[in-house]
């Protein structure tokens, strides 16, 4: 079972509410949901839509075709008509594209008018569509009671009931056990940060990263978290470093442009060896690019950002569950090695709503690596075998002070110009990079054990690639995908072993130059035979990946 719906219209027509109610109702029936929102960088007008897919399978990408199109305006009909399957339908209010008889026109606004609230027209539509799929009304009614304020819950309930009368039931969804949560990538990162004990998050609004800032801000008071909307992203990372130096877990985030402003401070984090977590929720660049769309073109940027040479770890987030656990892990690794850990998300993951098993908070560990007592004199940058110096919190140990310095420094943190100390300090910092090589996790392996066709990808393309590879594998194609999460230092073991037997290596990325491919060449001396690249700002659909792989194998 696998259905898709698109609801589309102008910004401001209330699609968000419709989408979140619909997603929830379907999830409560026990189905997996994946919803992608496609929106423009404007507050009113334009064309925005949600593509909501639901299935018994664990889906993480949208399909090319849909079963139902709910058009809030005529433009939506024109744009999405061709995606509607032969068995599918288009529904709209009577006033939309009156002459078009491929549309099932419903009296949505007339009913809303009768209920004395024009704004409930979408709820009437919701009722009609839910009944079409055979979703019991009590499930939807409960959600409306939960989501709407008391004053408007009643009228929405009436609208829902009226809607249920408008369309006959075509698909009779069997009610299954609902044991999932519905969450998007930004929320999953925010939740991960809170669970990891982040007490300081600062940022400057920038789509598509703002959701992380907003999510944490919403829960800040409950969890003793300072959320600071800083004057600029330069302040953001510097401020987070100050908070972390003083002993709290700190994080900041932005999209590419904002991250660009943090670059000097990233280098500072490297030399002062203060742990910090930074997320870049990518959107297409260069510069302002496509503010509300998706791309994976900042991989090289994240790996190399910052002047000078210093260790860092870069983790690409693959889906919401991964986003949650990797965020928690990022804090632990940052504090284990006193380094910056960079998370790489994108608009596709950030705004994509997925149903997932509730995250397992019981099995999360917070590992801080902070010394509460010292013997003898304290040296911030004490030379050790591993390159990791013991960390203490300023003000907590009488007689001990912590000096961090952006200049090259000696073990005490004092400025030095000594050539000998310089070499030792550079080596000390880079030693930590060697340890990180053991810390990184190998990519996820989807598909056959010893494939003839080896797909490589990273981050949020996971969903579409996984589905395509599984379908091809079911058809008897010898194929597997390696999906990189930890990506710097670059884990090579699995890649080296699978690539030996593979006849074709296919690199799939949402960028124009194939940055993962170049990384493989650099780090593993492996080159892909084909690149499947997409850089139109729209996410891969599972079907598109399937088709494009078929073209090259």
């Amino acid at each position, binding site marked *: 079972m696998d259905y898709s719906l698109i609801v589309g219209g102008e910004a401001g027509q209330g699609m968000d509410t419709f989408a979140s109610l619909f997603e929830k109702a379907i999830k409560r029936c026990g189905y997996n949901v994946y919803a992608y929102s496609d929106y423009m960088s404007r507050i009113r007008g334009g064309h925005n839509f949600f593509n909501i897919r639901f299935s018994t399978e664990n889906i993480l990408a949208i399909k090319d075709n849909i079963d139902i199109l709910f058009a809030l305006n005529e433009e939506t009909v024109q744009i999405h008509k061709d995606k509607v399957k032969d068995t599918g339908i288009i529904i709209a209010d009577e006033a939309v594209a009156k002459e078009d008889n491929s549309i099932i026109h419903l009296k949505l606004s007339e009913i809303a008018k009768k209920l004395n609230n024009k704004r409930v027209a979408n709820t009437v539509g919701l009722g009609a569509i839910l009944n079409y799929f055979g979703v019991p009304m009590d499930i939807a009614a409960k959600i409306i009671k939960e989501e709407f304020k008391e004053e408007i819950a009643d009228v929405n309930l009436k609208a829902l009931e009226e809607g249920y009368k408008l369309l006959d039931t075509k698909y009779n969804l069997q009610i299954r056990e609902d044991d999932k949560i519905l969450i998007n990538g930004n929320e999953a990162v925010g939740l991960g940060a809170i669970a990891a004990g982040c007490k300081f998050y600062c940022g400057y609004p920038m789509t598509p990263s703002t959701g992380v800032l907003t999510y944490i801000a919403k829960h800040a008071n409950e969890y003793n978290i300072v959320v600071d909307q800083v004057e600029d992203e330069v302040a953001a990372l*510097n401020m987070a470093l100050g908070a972390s130096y003083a002993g709290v877990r700190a994080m900041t985030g932005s999209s590419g442009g904002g991250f660009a402003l943090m670059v000097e401070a990233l280098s500072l984090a490297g030399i002062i060896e203060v742990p910090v977590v930074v997320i870049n929720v990518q959107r297409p660049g260069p510069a302002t690019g496509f503010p509300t769309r998706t791309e994976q073109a900042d991989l090289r940027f994240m790996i190399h950002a910052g002047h000078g040479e210093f260790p860092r770890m870069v983790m690409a987030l693959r889906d919401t569950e991964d986003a949650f656990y990797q965020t928690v892990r990022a804090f632990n690794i940052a504090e284990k090695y006193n380094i910056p850990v960079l998370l790489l998300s994108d608009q596709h993951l950030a705004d994509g709503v997925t149903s997932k098993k509730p995250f397992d908070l019981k099995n999360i560990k917070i590992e801080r690596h902070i010394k509460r007592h010292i013997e003898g004199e304290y040296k911030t940058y004490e030379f050790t075998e591993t390159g990791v110096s013991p960390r203490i919190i300023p*003000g907590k140990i009488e007689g001990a002070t912590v000096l961090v310095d*952006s200049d090259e420094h000696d073990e005490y943190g004092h400025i030095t110009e000594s050539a000998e100390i310089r070499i030792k300090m550079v080596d000390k910092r880079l030693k930590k990079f060697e340890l990180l090589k053991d810390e990184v996790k190998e990519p996820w392996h989807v598909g056959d054990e010893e494939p003839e066709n080896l797909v490589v990808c990273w981050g949020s393309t996971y969903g579409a690639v996984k589905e395509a590879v599984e379908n091809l594998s079911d058809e008897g194609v010898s194929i597997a995908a390696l999906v990189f999460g930890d990506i710097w230092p670059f884990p090579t073991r699995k890649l080296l072993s699978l690539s030996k037997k593979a006849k074709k290596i296919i690199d799939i990325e949402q960028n124009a130059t194939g940055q993962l491919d170049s990384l493989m060449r650099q780090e593993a001396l492996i080159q892909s035979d084909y690149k499947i690249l997409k850089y139109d700002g729209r996410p891969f659909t599972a079907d598109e990946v399937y088709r494009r792989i078929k073209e090259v194998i």
Partner: protein
Amino acid sequence: MTCKYELYEPAWCPGCGNYMIRTALKMALEELEIKPHEVVIVSGIGQAAKMPHYISVNGFNGLHGRAIPPAIGVKMANKELHVIVESGDGDTYGEGGNHFIHGIRRNIDIAHFVHNNQIYGLTKGQASPTTAMGQITTLQFDGVKVEPLNPLALALTMGAGFVARGFSGDIPHLVALMKEAIKYKGYALVDILQPCVVWNRVNTFSWYKNRVYHLPESYDYTNKEEAMKKALEFGDRIPIGVIYKEEKETYLDRFDFIKNGPPLVDVELNPLDAEKLLEEFR
């Protein structure tokens, strides 16, 4: 444990005003009986910004222009620390101008000592935002062509609650100012006139010495209009002392859980606390 501070050998030029500022700082901290491990000096880059290296305190010597953001981070993380920013005029009013402006809006409890030598010392004598119009420098060969910035007037218009000016050549006066700034609950700006004996041949020790005068006992530092007049007085006569002071709610106090709770750094972390957040996603 005593409240005695050790001093380390500075790399400043002989005769530089920074020595006097350090002496005053040490005296202020010792007289306030603050222990070295309870203080964090946050600085940027420049001659002034080397301060945390030359006195035994906790130090965060960060990036040029970026002392204020980490200082805010430190104070938010641990309200029990005394946070002091030491920075130059270029550091604070040039590269870090945006942080200066928005730092004032927060009114966080930090004492900010700006070593204002009206020049870029460390990079060898280029104009700073406070260098006078027309002054010839190692870069402005025809003289500076932009108007100088008035930091005190700017701070006042931004609503700063503590605005003062000191002079490195008047140590007892400076010690008193520093103590008052450190004790002040909120953001306290002390712009300290400091001769750079190498690069600023205009604003020399005697240039300042001949101009500065103590604000009289009768001066009402709660009167903003008077304060603005004093802030703008920078010529033949330059007033030093507390120019403006008012009690204001601090940034920390606007966060209930900080005001009435433990320092953030002491909050126990338990992942299970976040379990209930899963509910809204069901």
